[in-house]
């Protein structure tokens, strides 16, 4: 066997090998978009898998949110009904009566207070409802309470000891009835014998029971969210896996044309990112529409839209976006790596 010697001017020693040009990020991105557009049929199927998975997840998240809000609203209505009933029980018919609501500096349960006030006015009190009046303002001008039939003290913990101001206040009332929101009751002090003090809300344990039921229902809702998360992940992963393995032959061909492994990986990751994000966006829109639609059927669109909290919907959308993108990319990485590092003979042998 003749010896191996290095050849003429055109040295083929590996050192003389040139660089293989790998298209830039911009070019790769353009190739990706064109490719997705050209393979629209296949891309739509892959996209469909992602969209449906994310739509399912998003709709369970939004549904859970709507349900929580609606439950809160219904609980509030229940409380308001109870409170108005207590007022009526104490002062009789609301027409031509006068009720003053006192509030501290920091008002708790504002929504409840608003609903309560609205309900009282609508129930016959009309202009007779005074307030909410801040407690500190009262010191100077206690005439608000003149002729008042009832005083609503909107404090969680009213003072245990009646101060002089309070006594003054109560003295000016016609038939002083004090209705306390919260669990603390004004401590009865001497000189207050004729003042009736009642609690506005049902006892705490009753409230707790109601709340517990709502919480239980919410927890069941989270189970569904969990299931949808798993389904979405698997659907997206499957769609992307299929998308990549269908292209093994094409990848093998590109390797024969001189494509670098890194180029192939980049191309596939770009495409799966693109599909993942696009699918997530479409899925999010679809999911929201579906959830709103489903609840609107029962509760009416207005109620549902009010119940929705923009903040948590945005949060859910963000999470779905990240999930869609990440799962798509991760699901594509493994087959992409396999394809990029296969010997072309094997890649080309693949039957599509």
């Amino acid at each position, binding site marked *: 066997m003749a010896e191996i010697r290095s050849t003429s001017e055109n040295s083929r020693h590996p050192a003389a090998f040139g660089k*293989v040009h790998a298209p830039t990020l911009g070019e790769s991105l353009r190739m990706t978009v064109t*490719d997705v557009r050209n393979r629209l049929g296949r891309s739509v199927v892959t996209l469909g898998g992602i969209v449906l998975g994310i739509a399912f997840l998003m709709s369970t998240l939004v549904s859970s949110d709507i349900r929580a809000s609606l439950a809160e609203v219904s609980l509030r209505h229940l409380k308001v009904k109870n409170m108005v009933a207590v007022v009526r029980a104490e002062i009789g018919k609301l027409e031509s009566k006068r009720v003053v609501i006192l509030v501290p500096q920091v008002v708790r349960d504002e929504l409840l207070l608003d609903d309560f006030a609205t309900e009282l006015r609508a129930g016959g009190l009309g202009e007779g409802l005074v307030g909410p009046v801040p407690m500190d303002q009262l010191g100077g001008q206690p005439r608000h309470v003149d002729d008042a039939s009832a005083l609503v003290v909107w404090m969680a913990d009213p003072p245990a000891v009646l101060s002089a101001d309070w006594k003054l206040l109560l003295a000016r009332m016609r038939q002083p009835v004090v209705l306390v929101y919260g669990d603390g009751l004004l401590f009865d002090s001497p000189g207050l014998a004729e003042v009736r003090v009642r609690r506005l809300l049902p006892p705490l344990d009753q409230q707790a029971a109601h709340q517990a039921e709502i919480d239980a229902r919410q927890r069941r809702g989270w189970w569904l969210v969990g299931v949808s998360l798993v389904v979405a992940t698997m659907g997206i992963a499957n769609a992307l896996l299929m998308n990549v393995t269908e292209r093994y032959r*094409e990848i093998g061909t*590109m390797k024969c044309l*001189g494509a670098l492994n890194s180029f192939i990986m980049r191309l596939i990751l770009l495409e799966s990112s693109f599909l993942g994000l696009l699918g997530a966006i479409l899925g999010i829109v679809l999911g929201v529409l579906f959830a709103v639609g489903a609840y609107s059927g029962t509760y009416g669109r207005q109620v549902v839209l009010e119940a929705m909290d923009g903040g948590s919907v945005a949060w859910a959308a963000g999470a779905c976006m990240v999930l869609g993108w990440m799962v798509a990319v991760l699901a594509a990485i493994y087959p992409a790596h396999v394809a990029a590092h296969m*010997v072309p003979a094997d890649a080309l042998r693949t039957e599509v």
Partner: protein
Amino acid sequence: MNNPQRLGEFADGLGNSTEMDDAVRTAGVVKEYVMGPVTVAALAGVDVAIGRGEYLSIMGPSGSGKTTLFNMMGGLDKPTRGKVFVDAVDIAELNPVELAWLRCRKIGYIFQTFNLIGTMTALENVMLPMSFAGMTSEEALDRGVEILARVGLGERCKHKPTQLSGGQQQRVAIARAFANEPAIILADEPTGNLDLKTGQEIISLLKEMNRESGVTVISATHDHKMLDVSDRIVWMADGRIDHIERREDVDIQVGSIEQ
């Protein structure tokens, strides 16, 4: 075909060149597949050297190892044992980047199933390897159009593979293979999916380009039409070279079907 000058280069009886200016050379190439307890040898030791500018056909029945040998020579697969030298470079020594360069610039591939990228036009298919070679898109466009015209598809530049016949697709594949002016063309059953007449056209085209540019052509094929244009024919059987013939040693009689 019968080139006395080139004959002188073939020093040993098998026609193997001892000049180290071989396009491709294999040394003791073995390819084994392990299937459980049994090891199947697709190639059981092959030594062959192919000279520059030569048109070589590898022939043999299915299972003879011709496609496996072809894959080894083209760097499409790795041998279990033995070495493959492309232009005196052991391709097993190359890292992935160098291997990519080799496939981009030195070797052009043609396949039985054409393997064009279906979402690109004929022109874009031809331009793809040129973009890997670092050509600007203007240069690539010009050369692409030129080379498509050379293979007879001047008006079909903007067609997608689905709009082209088998023969036309193979022409695009040939244009693509020649895009970066390779030193070696590897053709795996180029006429396998084509009818008689189209197959003959393709073979003629390949031979023309072999003559014009002095490119080495290595073809693994069943097609006996290839015999006429080959400088040497390697006959494979059971994973080994059965015998090598030179074109002038082959007696070909061409008949025709009376129409």
